[in-house]
C-alpha cells in the first residue's frame, strides 16, 4: 500500500501569461518517516502528436519527510518555446506532475492546459508564428487526472527484467529525448509497474 498519499494539488497563479512559471501547491500525507526523498517532476507536453516534444520543466527533491501531512509549492519555469512545434503552441495540451520514490513512479497527475490569446483580434486571426507574449495559459485545475501505481516502498527498484510487464502507456508519455541529463531516473521508469505484487 502507498506510504504517501497525495491529498490535494492546488494550481496557483492560474490563469497566467504563458511565460509565467508554473506553481503547484502539493499537499500530501506520509504514513511513516521516509528514509529517502521524493522526487517530483513537472513535464510539459509540447505536442499531443508525439512525446518527442515533452519537456521536463524541472525536477525537485522533497525531503526529509517525517510521518505526517506536508505541503510545498513546486515552482518551475515556463516551457522553452523553442522546443514547442509552432502549430501546437495555441490550443489544448497537457502538463504532468509525477512523483517517484526510489526511482519508482507512484503517482502521475495530469492537467489539461488551454493556451489562447486574450486579445479577441489575435484569437480570431492568430499569427502564423505564435506570439508567446500575448498567450495566456489556463490550467483546468478542477479536473486533474490521477493515475496511481503500486510500488515497492520497502526496497529499491527491482531489476530490469520486469520491464516487459509494464503498461506501455506511462512510458509513452515520457520520452528520453526531451530530458537531457535526466537519463538515470528515466532508465528506471519500467519499475513503475506494480512490482510489489
Amino acid at each position, binding site marked *: *500500500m502507498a506510504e504517501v*498519499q497525495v*491529498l*490535494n494539488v492546488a494550481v496557483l497563479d492560474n490563469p497566467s501569461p504563458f511565460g509565467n512559471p508554473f506553481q503547484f501547491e502539493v499537499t500530501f500525507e506520509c504514513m511513516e518517516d521516509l528514509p529517502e*526523498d521524493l522526487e517530483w517532476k513537472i513535464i510539459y507536453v509540447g505536442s499531443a502528436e508525439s512525446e518527442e516534444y515533452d519537456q521536463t520543466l*524541472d525536477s525537485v527533491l522533497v525531503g526529509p519527510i517525517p510521518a505526517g501531512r506536508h*505541503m*510545498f509549492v513546486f515552482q518551475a519555469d515556463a516551457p522553452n518555446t523553442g522546443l514547442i512545434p509552432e502549430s501546437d503552441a495555441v490550443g489544448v495540451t497537457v502538463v504532468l506532475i509525477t512523483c517517484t520514490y526510489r526511482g519508482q513512479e507512484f503517482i502521475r497527475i495530469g492537467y489539461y492546459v488551454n493556451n489562447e490569446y486574450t486579445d479577441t483580434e489575435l484569437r480570431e486571426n492568430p499569427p502564423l508564428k505564435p506570439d508567446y507574449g500575448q498567450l495566456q495559459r489556463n490550467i483546468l485545475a478542477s479536473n486533474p*487526472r490521477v493515475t496511481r501505481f503500486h510500488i515497492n516502498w520497502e526496497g529499491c527498484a527491482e531489476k530490469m527484467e520486469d520491464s516487459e510487464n509494464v503498461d506501455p502507456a506511462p512510458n509513452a508519455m515520457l520520452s528520453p529525448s526531451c530530458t537531457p541529463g535526466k537519463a538515470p531516473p528515466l532508465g528506471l521508469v519500467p519499475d513503475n509497474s506494480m512490482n510489489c505484487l
Partner: protein
Amino acid sequence: MKLLKPSWVNHNGKPIFSVDIHPDGTKFATGGQGEDSGKVVIWNMAPVLREEDERNENIPKLLCQMDNHLACVNCVRWSNNGLYLASGGDDKLVMVWKRAAFIGPSTVFGSSSKLANVEQWRCVMILRNHTGDVMDVAWSPHDVWLASCSVDNTIVIWNARKFPEIVMTLKGHTGLVKGLTWDPVGKYIASQADDRSLKVWRTMDWQLETNITKPFSECGGTTHVLRLSWSPDGQYLVSAHAMNNSGPTAQIIERDGWKTNMDFVGHRKAVTVVKFNPKIFKKKQKNGSTPKPSCPYCCCAVGSKDRSLSVWLTSLKRPLVVIHDLFDKSIMDITWTLNGLGLLVCSMDGTVAFLDFSQDELGDPLNEEEKNAIHQNIYGKSLAITMESQLSSTIIENPEMLKYQQERQGNQNPNEAQGIGPENQTPKLTNVLNGESLEDIRKNLLKKQVETRTADGRRRITPLCIAQLDTADFLPALFNSVPILPGSSASTQLTPQISSDSSTANSLGLRPSHDPTTTSPNKTAEDNKDSGTAAVNSIGMKSNLLLTSASKIEPMKALDSRFTERSKAMPGVTSVPLTIGITPLDRVKDSSSVKEPKGKDETSSDSEDKIMVKSIAKRKGEMEGAEVVEKRKKGRPRKDAKTMPFPQTPVEPSRLTTPIAVLKLPTPSIQKSFSTQVSTDGVTYLEVENEVSVVSGSRLSQLKWSREGREWDVLLPSRIIIAAGSSNVVAVACEDRTLSVFTACGRRLIPSIILPVPMSALHCSGHFVMALTASAMLSVWDVQKQTALVKNESLNPILSGTDATVSQSFLTQQGVAVVSLSNGKTYCFNSSLETWNLIADKQDSLVQCTDFRNCVSAQDALGSMGPLALTQGRNLSAGRLASRLSSTPHHLQQGMTLAFLEKQLSSALILLSASEYRHWLLIYARFLVNEGEMSKLFLFNRSEWGLELLTSKNNEKSTIKVVCMIPGYTFHIF
C-alpha cells in the same frame, strides 16, 4: 421481522466478501473487490436502521473507503473494543486500521466521485507473513490476539498488543484454511479448512486439542469461505460446510468431548457461513403472567451457497425463519448487531441485506451480567469482571462491559440528535501551526519553504509539516496498551483517546456525554469512572441472585429439543417456503407449556443434582422419541448418534460437587467406541471399540493404535473405559478394574494391574503412567524401570475442607502428577518430599498485582510453555495487565512481584520443568536488575539440568560486585 436491502451499500457491483458491524453499532465495514484493488468500505449504520435517516441527505451513508489492499479483501473484522479494524485479502496481507480523529473530511484527490471520506481510517499496521491469500481474520476475546488464516494452510496468531509480533503459527491443516472462530471463553480457537477437517487448538500451548474429520469426509472443497462460529455460551461450535448422508449441513460440535451428534439440516447447497447471535436469549415474559425461570437459548444464522439464509433458535425445533432467493449468488458473511436483534448479510452478488427482528420473535436478550453469570457457572470464571470484590485488584478488561455502559448511557439519553454532519465532525486542521491559519501559511508557502541545493546541484525542498501524525497513532504503542477502560483509574494515557472518541460519538448520538459542556478530558474520564463503578455495583448486588437462577440452566436442553427435530428439519425448511416475517408465537407458546412442569421442579429448591437427574431422565425420554422418528426417516442421522451414549452428568467433573466426606471422583461412562489423540504430535491416535466381537458368549474389546499409516491393535476381554498414551507407552483401564500397559509398538509391558476401585483419570507421559481412581487415590508408575513413583496417595489433603472437585489432571514429561481443582488451585505431588504442593492458584492476589512485564522479551514466549504455564497460563497475562492499572504503591507491588516470581521459580523447580525454570529465572533476574534490588543477589552455576539459584543475603551494597551471566542475557551489577 423486517427485511431491507439497502441498495446504496455496494462496491459498484463487485462482490462483497465480508461484512462486520462495529461494536458500538454506529457503523459497519464491508470488504471485497474494488476497481483494480481490494476495497474496504465503512458505512454509516443509521441510514440502514431508520428510513428517515436514509432519506436525510445530511446524514452520510459512506464514511470511509480504503483501497490500500492490492487485491480482493476476503474478511473485515472489528476488534472487540471497536478501536481497530482488521482486514485480510488476496494480497496475502492483513491490515489493521485505526481511526484518525484529528483530520477532517477529505476527498480522495482526483477521484471522479466527489464523495468525501467523512471519517479517516488509516492503516496503522501491515502484517506480512502469509504466503497465500488471507481468508479469514478473528480477534480473540479481549483483543489479546488477532488470528488470520490463509490458503497457505496455516493460521497465524498475532500479538495484538505488540504488532507485528507473531505468537505462533498453527500448522497442521493440509488444505486451504477458510474460517476461524475463537472460543468466547478464550480457551480455544477453531479453524475449518478444505482438507475436510475442523481443528480446535488450545490457546494455552497452541497445540491441537482435537481434529474433527468425520462430518466433513464427504465434503468437496467448493466453497469460497468456511466461516464457522462458536456459541456465546461457549458450549457449541458450529461448522460451515459439513455433510450428513450426502446432504449439506452445519455440524454442531459440543465442547464437552467434541461430540458431533447434531447438525442444522435443510440447506440445499454447502453452508458457507454460520454466525451465532452475540446474545443469549430467554423467553419473552408476557405481561401479567407470573415470571418463571425459563431455559436460556442461543440464536444462530446460517448462510449457504444455495443463496438462502436460515435463522435458528436452539429452543425451537425448526428454523425460526428461512429466506430463499435473498441474493443472486452465494452468501459470504453474516454479522449481528450487538443487541442481537439485527443481522447484516452480504453476498458474492455485491449486495447486502439487513434483517430486523423484534424481541417477540427472538426473545428477551440476557443482559451482560446474566450472560456472565452463565459463564461463571459453566466455567468457574466470568468473561467480564462483575464481582465487586474483584474490582480492587482486577481491571475491567472486557469490552462487553464498556459496551454495556455505553448502552446504558445511550438509554439514559435516547433522544439525543442522531444526525451526523460533516460540519460537526472532527477538529479542523487550522490550529496546527502556532495559531497561524492554514490560509496564512498557504499565502506565504513559496517564500517560507526551505529550498536548498544538493551536492549534485539539484533543487531540494523541505516540505512544511502542517499536521504531525501523533505517534501513538502510528507506532504500535497503542496496541500495547489496554483497551479503553472507562472504569479504570489508571487509563490516563488513554484518556484523551476516550474523550475525543466520545466527543465524536456525541455527534453520532449514540454515546451522549453526561455533560455536554465537558471539555476537560479528565472530567470525562471521571464521569466514566463513576458510572462504571455504579454499574458494577449494581451488578455486584444482583449477581448472587443471578447465579442461583443461572445454576438451573441446562445448555444441553436447548439443543436437545432440536435433536428430536433433526429429522423433521428438512421438511421444516421446505414447509416454510419463502416466508418473510413469520411470527413464531404459537411455537413459543407450545414450548413454554411443555417446559412449565419442569420450571416448577426447579423452583422447589431441590438440590442441583437432583434436578439434573430428572432432566436427564427427561432427555432420555426425548432421545428415545427422537430415535423412533429417526428410524422412520430412513436413518438420516449419523450412525454413531444412536450408539453414542448421551452425555451424562459425570462427563465434565468440574460441574459436579463432590461430597466432602466420601471423596469420590467421577468415572467416565462406558462408550461403545471412542478415540483419543496421543501426545501432542497430532498424528498418533488411539481408537477403542468395545464389544467388537463376541466369541462363544464373551465379548471382546479392541484397542487400535495408529500413527501415519502404521497401526496395531490388541484385544481385551473387558470393556475399555479410558485409554491414554504417550510416545512410549499406551495404557488402558477396563471395566473390570484392570489397568493394562503396552509399549508404543503394541507389546504388553506388564500383566494387568488390578485396581481397588474404578479409574477416574488416566494419563501417560514418556515412560510414566498416572492413575487417578474414583476413590481419589493417585498412583504414578515408571513402567520402564518398573517402579512406583507415587503409591496410592490420597487426594484428601487437597480436597478436604473444600467443596471443590478435580477439574483437570495431567502428567508432565518428568513424571510429576498435576491435579487442578475446580476452585482454581493446582497441586502437584512431590514424591521425594511426599507432599502435595500448591503450584498455581487462580485466586492468588499476588498474581493480580505483579508487574514484570518489562522484564519479558518476545523470545521468552517459547520458554514459558510447559506444565506450569498449562495450569496458570492465562491468568498470568491477566495479572500482568491488572498490575499496570493497579494503584498499589510501588514498593508493595515490587514486593508482590518478587514473591510471585520466587513462587514461580519454586513451582517450576518442583515440576522439574527446566525450560520454565529458566524462563522465570530470566525474568526474576531482569526484574532484580531493573528494580535495583540489591538485597537478593544471585549467582548461577550450571547444574545437571540447567541453572541453579543461589541467594545471597548480603545487604551491603558497597561491597557487592557480582557479574551475572545468563545465556542470551548478560548484565552486571556493581
